[in-house]
């Protein structure tokens, strides 16, 4: 899986100062974001062919959030709970892209042997607790993984990714209070893409910013521009360092936009064409990153283009192999319900 983006933390990215990132590191960041984009763009096309079963929620447009946060996490030590829109979080955390694709196709070679699907992809070996089909399901789980980090004293941090809509779930708000009361090494990343299904955050969230609620739970609330990898990288680095050092939880609000519908099939009539057009034209974190690193001369167009090619090839292989892979053995219907029964 050499072309799979390696988990960025293994590159030792724990300095919140983005300007300290080397070109090697930046190239890896780019590979991560590009891989997510290519993965999602391809799924969008494949879903239209009817080959992909179930509900699929794409992360395209939100890449800088996953990349900027996961850059500070160590695979196998830190823990992550994701939501229904989890492909990007997994890829940024170094989960096997081909095994993810196979899972989405419901094949035996998938990370969950095809028994989970897009909404339940997980890789516990890497501390990735899985996508979650229950909105607000992740934050309570992260209170538990963070508690485990604290009790074991392993220096790990628990990170929960959830959306603006999820921020109105009692599960999320109870978790913020609990994490604060227990002073847990946790970071709550609310990816505010402006919508929960067809409902706008400016209607469903009774305050200007989700992060404005942090004060009510005795923790810092931070807002960051999710179209700017570097901004996310620094803000997340700071929150994660605080958590690691015993400083307690942070509510980090990443403002971003999603390029595709809530799930595949959504016509997005609740958004205007202009809004969508503007999002893709002016809120594309990949474009922003590309411009920044080339203009500053840190990376060349040629280097980036090579990554584009490699990434495209990886996704092509992932889809081809997923389609060719066998479906789960019928016996799998009855296995792995219990450890013993």
């Amino acid at each position, binding site marked *: 899986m050499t072309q799979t983006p390696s988990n960025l933390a293994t590159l030792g990215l724990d300095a919140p100062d983005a300007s300290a990132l080397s070109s090697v590191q930046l190239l890896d960041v780019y590979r991560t974001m590009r891989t997510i984009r290519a993965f999602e763009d391809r799924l969008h096309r494949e879903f239209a062919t009817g080959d992909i079963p179930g509900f699929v929620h794409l992360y395209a447009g939100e890449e800088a959030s996953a990349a900027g946060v996961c850059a500070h996490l160590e695979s196998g030590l830190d823990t992550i709970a994701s939501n229904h829109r989890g492909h990007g979080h997994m890829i940024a955390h170094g989960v096997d892209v081909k095994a993810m694709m196979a899972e989405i196709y419901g094949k035996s070679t998938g990370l969950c042997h095809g028994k989970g699907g897009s909404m339940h992809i997980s890789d516990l070996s890497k501390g990735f607790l899985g996508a979650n089909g229950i909105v607000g399901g992740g934050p309570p789980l992260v209170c538990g993984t963070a508690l485990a980090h604290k009790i074991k004293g392993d220096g790990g941090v628990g990170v929960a990714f959830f959306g603006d809509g999820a921020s109105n779930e009692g599960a999320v708000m109870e978790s913020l209070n609990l994490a604060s009361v227990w002073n847990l090494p946790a970071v709550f990343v609310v990816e505010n893409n402006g919508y*929960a299904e*067809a409902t706008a955050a400016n209607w469903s969230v009774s305050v200007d910013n989700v992060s404005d609620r942090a004060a009510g739970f005795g923790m810092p609330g931070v807002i960051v521009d999710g179209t700017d990898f570097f901004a996310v990288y620094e803000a997340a680095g700071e929150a994660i360092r605080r958590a690691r050092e015993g400083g307690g939880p942070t509510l980090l609000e990443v403002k971003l936009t999603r390029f595709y519908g809530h799930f595949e099939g959504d016509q997005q009539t609740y958004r205007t064409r202009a809004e969508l057009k503007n999002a893709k034209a002016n809120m594309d974190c990949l474009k922003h990153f590309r411009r920044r690193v080339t203009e500053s001369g840190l990376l060349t167009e040629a280097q980036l283009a090579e990554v584009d090619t490699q990434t495209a090839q990886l996704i092509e292989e992932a889809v081809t192999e997923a389609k060719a892979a066998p479906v789960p053995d019928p016996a799998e219907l009855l296995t792995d319900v219990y450890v013993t029964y």
Partner: protein
Amino acid sequence: MATRKISYREAINEALVQEMERDSNVILIGTDIAGGAGGEGKDDAWGGVLGVTKGLYGKFPGRVLDTPISETGYMGAAVGAATQGLRPVAELMFIDFAGVCLDSMLNQAAKFRYMFGGTAVTPLTVRAMYGAGLRAGAQHSQALYPMFTHFPGLKVVVPSSPYEAKGLLAQSIRDDDPVLFFEHKLMYEVTGEVPEESYTIPFGKAHVVREGGDVTIVAIGRMVSLAELAATELQASGISVEIIDPRTLSPLDLDTILGSVNKTGRLVVVDEASPRCNLATDISAQVVSEAFGDLLAPVKMVSPPHVPVPFAASLEDLYMPSTQDIVNAVKT
């Protein structure tokens, strides 16, 4: 003269329209049952995640309420509003989400009338999608109606066709007790004859879908259509099947089932819910304790295995009870 054919989805939408026209106290509450709140684009952009409530937002201004994703809050609100003379129809998008808001049904709506000595009336209807087959995975494919049937104070309704859906939903809304109304997500496209005028189907009255003399099959919700296919197949091999659709699980029309078993001496119960403590066991046990003497053979139960619902299509198809499973249960 044949009445017109419409889909299960349209039948439910029509029942909502007619009840809202009939009674201004009927309101709808749910996440994106309209859609578009706060957005710059269209209002009523969704009409529900699968379009069941489409168009109602425009038809009934102020009576179709979208919500934040706060099931505990809005389901509880629906219960509270019901105690004040409104007749809320709350949508719990997937019944699986009962996990985040069960209290409103378990400890509030179900118990008010009894705890309060008969002074409370809580005419609440909860609509929810249930069932496997949409490749939606373990957290979006459960049946869960056995759990609600277990709770005293609730009524549980599972329509098996567009006709049943319209009439039973109208009755659910007019009923003065809290009702859980289960819609199978695979049936929205199923069409059938449905009268245009408003009508209700009484609770606690089973429907004899097909008469027969050799064996009684009690089937619930979507399983009724599978039982009908099985019956046709069995007819070919000379076995005459009687099919009973209980329509409502609480109250349950045990008499009609007992009457049929008295005639056939054989019982097969087909229930899509997980097998432990489900309706197959509930109905079988009640029949055995009431009519042991009428039974000529062991009661058979056709249910999925005791496992979560798998995602992969190949496994999910194996998971769900099939026509063949029913045929086998009758033959062996």
